[in-house]
């Protein structure tokens, strides 16, 4: 039966499996020409290219502004010329002015015969540089959406907790990065590398990403179903349960209690059970909201979101049930679990969010609904099969490894379908890039979705696995995806919706700082570990003593720490921005009104 299955897979993917096998015969000398390596290289160039485009768009906007300034200057010079007029003319003007100051309403002022002269002396102050010279005040989103107060509260609570875990989790990550450079940074048991590493990964997984996704999901589900959330109370209970999971789980990890060392499965089952219950409650809540929707169609976002929830519930049950996973059985489940955790939970849910928030921010429909449906079903079929590609060349069954590699190639279908859909939706709205930072966040997220996922498929090839597996390249890949895709898209969604919910925008300078710090940081992080990882793999292939690969990594670890620091600072900036967006309105409204009047004089 098994072999029939394999034969079927080979028939379907004969070309791709040929590609995967062809890797075996490559020689070390021409490793640079291996398709996996070339592919990865091209993908990185794509990211660079997009970064340059965004940068150029920003520069372009800046130059435009300078030009406008020049024009303004010319106008001022022109008015200066006017002042150089001879006495007679000046007298007339002064007389006019006197008249103007004495002006009394006659009753026909609103008639259309009047010239645009400041006869009434309304202009009190003239500024010569009308625009701020440091940065562009970008367009605000004054449009606020009528949302029930309870829903606003739920979204804010989930996002606030997520932001807290983001800062905490990446602080831990930052500290771990430093330990590669200074291994003796501390000698406290609960801060040691082995115990803290899972704290970092689990916190950003279950704390930051999951809570942010669910919070953003609540808004999507209510909005696209034109309905009220089934139960606000359930949402709050799930919030408590998930936060409790992360809190207790981290404490347990730091005291040296973990589930057996499998990645992302380090929380022991009594703690992870809280998370599973939280997920089940969330699913019921979402499902009932969709079930009682006020429109007949189920929007594509809800497909992704509901499926992500139901799949992850199944996943965490399969991941923790003990009946089939002692010894190496555990390893098969581990590969399945850790890949599905990323693919069926984070990826699926976040894509669902993008299908709503991206069109929402551009104020236009998604490019193709059918491409979305195609991406949905292929996501389910292909992503489920590829877990074992984390264990290529391991003692796990060879057929299972081959299936994983073949379907990794198949992942190009949902990835291309999804990223095409998003990019085509953005098409025609590129001028948004220079107007606000929401689209740059989306664009980087989508580009990384294409680049990171395809790079992952390349990495599953047997040859690329040969050189990269076990090296720091893996770490680069996971940050490229969990950070480049998931975090950037989540930030894009947050910057889209929270200002609309509360009517408050963070300063664009700070959003820009967040964007560029996170992006440049990630790029430094990624490239240093990719280069270092490749050199490490080659050092192993050459049969050099192991310690040499440790020594050669040192400079790359330093650059990783530099990148990580930029990323961490960007999270502090984000936390500040988030605080600005959600902080309670000060009571004295008058002050705000006054400042608005002042601004309107300048314009």
């Amino acid at each position, binding site marked *: 039966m098994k072999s029939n*299955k394999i034969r079927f897979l080979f028939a379907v993917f004969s070309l791709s499996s040929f590609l995967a096998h062809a890797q*075996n*015969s490559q*020689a*070390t000398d021409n490793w640079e020409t291996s398709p996996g390596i070339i592919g990865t290289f091209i993908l990185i160039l794509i990211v660079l290219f997009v970064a340059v485009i965004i940068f150029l768009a920003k520069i372009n906007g800046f130059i435009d502004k300078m030009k406008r300034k020049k024009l303004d200057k010319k106008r001022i010079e022109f008015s200066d010329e006017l002042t150089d007029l001879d006495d007679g003319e000046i007298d007339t003007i002064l007389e006019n002015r006197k008249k103007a100051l004495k002006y009394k309403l006659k009753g026909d002022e609103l008639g259309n015969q009047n010239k645009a002269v400041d006869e009434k002396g309304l202009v009190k102050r003239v500024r010569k540089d009308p625009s701020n010279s440091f940065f562009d005040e970008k367009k605000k989103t004054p449009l606020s959406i009528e949302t029930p107060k309870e829903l606003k509260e739920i979204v804010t609570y989930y996002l606030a907790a997520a932001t807290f875990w983001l800062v905490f989790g990446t602080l831990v990550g930052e500290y771990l990065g430093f*330990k*590669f450079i200074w*291994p003796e940074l501390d*000698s406290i048991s609960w801060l*040691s*590398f*082995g*115990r803290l*590493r899972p704290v970092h990964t689990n916190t950003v997984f279950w704390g930051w990403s999951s809570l942010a996704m669910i919070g953003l999901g609540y808004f999507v589900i209510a909005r696209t179903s034109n309905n009220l959330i089934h139960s606000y109370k359930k949402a709050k209970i799930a919030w408590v349960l998930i936060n409790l999971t992360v809190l207790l789980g981290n404490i347990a990890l730091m005291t*040296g*209690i*973990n*589930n*057996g*060392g*499998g990645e992302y499965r380090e929380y022991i089952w009594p703690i992870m059970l809280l998370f599973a219950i939280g997920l089940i409650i969330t699913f019921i809540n979402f499902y009932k909201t969709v*079930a009682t929707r006020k429109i*007949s*169609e*189920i929007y594509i976002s809800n*497909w992704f979101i509901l*499926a992500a929830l*139901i*799949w992850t519930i*199944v*996943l965490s049950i399969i991941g923790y049930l003990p009946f*089939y996973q*002692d*010894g190496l*059985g*555990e*390893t*098969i*489940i*581990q590969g*399945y679990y850790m890949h599905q955790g990323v693919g069926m939970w984070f990826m699926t849910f976040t894509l669902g969010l993008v299908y709503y928030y991206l069109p929402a921010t551009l104020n236009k429909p998604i490019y193709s609904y059918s491409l979305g449906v195609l991406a949905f079903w292929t996501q*389910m*079929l292909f992503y*489920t*099969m590829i877990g*074992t590609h984390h264990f290529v*060349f*391991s*003692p796990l*069954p060879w057929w*299972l490894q081959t*299936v994983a590699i073949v379907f990794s190639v198949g992942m190009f279908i949902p990835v291309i379908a999804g990223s095409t859909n998003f990019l085509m939706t953005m098409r025609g709205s590129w001028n948004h890039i220079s107007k606000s930072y929401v689209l740059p966040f989306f664009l980087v997220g989508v580009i990384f979705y294409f680049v990171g996922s395809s790079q992952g498929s390349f990495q599953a090839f047997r040859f690329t696995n*040969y050189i990269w597996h*076990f*090296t720091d390249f*893996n770490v680069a890949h996971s940050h490229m995806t969990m950070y480049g895709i998931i975090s950037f898209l989540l930030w894009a969604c947050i910057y889209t919706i929270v200002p609309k919910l509360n009517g408050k925008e963070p300063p664009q300078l700070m959003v820009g700082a967040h964007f560029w710090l996170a992006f440049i940081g990630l790029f430094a992080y990624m490239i240093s570990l990719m280069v270092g990882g490749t050199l490490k793999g080659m050092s*192993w292939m050459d049969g050099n003593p*192991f*310690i040499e690969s*440790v020594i050669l990594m040192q400079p790359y670890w330093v650059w990783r720490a530099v990148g990580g620091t930029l990323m961490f600072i960007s999270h502090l900036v984000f936390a500040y921005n988030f605080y600005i967006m959600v902080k309670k309105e000060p009571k004295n409204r008058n002050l705000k009104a006054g400042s608005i009047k002042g601004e309107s004089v300048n314009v």
Partner: protein
Amino acid sequence: MLDFNTNHKALVLTAFSVFVVLSFGVAILPASQMEKYEALPEQEDLTDQEFEGLRVYIGEGCVACHTQQVRNIEMDQVWGKRPSIPEDYHFSKKRMDVWRQSASLLGSERTGPDLTDIGKRQPSESWQLLHLYNPRAVVKESVMPSFPWLFKEVDSNRVKESDAVVAVPSQFLNDKSKKIVASEDALQLVAYLKSLKQPKMPENSEPEFIPFSKKKKEGGDQTADASSGLDGKDLFSSTCASCHQASGEGVPGAFPSLVGSDIVNTDDAEQMIRIILEGYNELEDYGPMPGFADQLSDAEIAAIMTYERSSWGNDAPEVKEEDVKKVRADLENATNP
């Protein structure tokens, strides 16, 4: 039926059931099949102490940096004699307890060396303990964390007979008047590490490594053939240098120096051969040395000794394979008369 657009029940049920079916095919069924392997004939079960050591190994998160799998590709040959097979993991089949599942050992990062065969590669308990106390005492460039909480600082006069005192060079001590004693956890962990040896397989059934390329394969065959011309320096650095260091100077206070040593420099090599074969624990303030009789062949020992006796200013005649063979035979006669 296919009205997923409007029928939420159909949508969720389909997504759910297809995922469950796929999960069975790709995870649960293969996993429960994988569970069914038995131990190899010569494979020993973990003792209670070693199993406790496995718990420490998992609790401290060693898995984050150390793999335990020799992949079936050529570059992994340095980590074991043959690629790992499912049976090798028989020892990890036991669930750790009700709260925790069976250990996840294969790992996904090799920030530190693979540990599949560490019990054979580094059998010295005193090296393992010192390395855990402070890895940089034995490997200068190491980035491994130190594990001081697995050790106790005890006043020199309070050390009990039963205590496992770790030979720590004085520059790595916080308080020079104190001795470092290994805790129960440390001893268990080291016992576990020492138990990690690739079990022998029945003859001719060993799986083979996939050669990286044809060119490499030919090269590989040549080195195997040229076993008569063993490189003493290479053997020394792979077997001896972790304690005695590449400079031969050892680690003061932990592992003795070979430079200018009387034992190394005497013309009659017999005592030195005995030490290498049987191990040695006569020197005060130094850790005991394990014997290498099972691990090294006569020719290899001769090559290493010749290298040691002619390097770093040492000057003693070379050692021949026959000399080692003779001492080994004497020792075997003495133990089984």
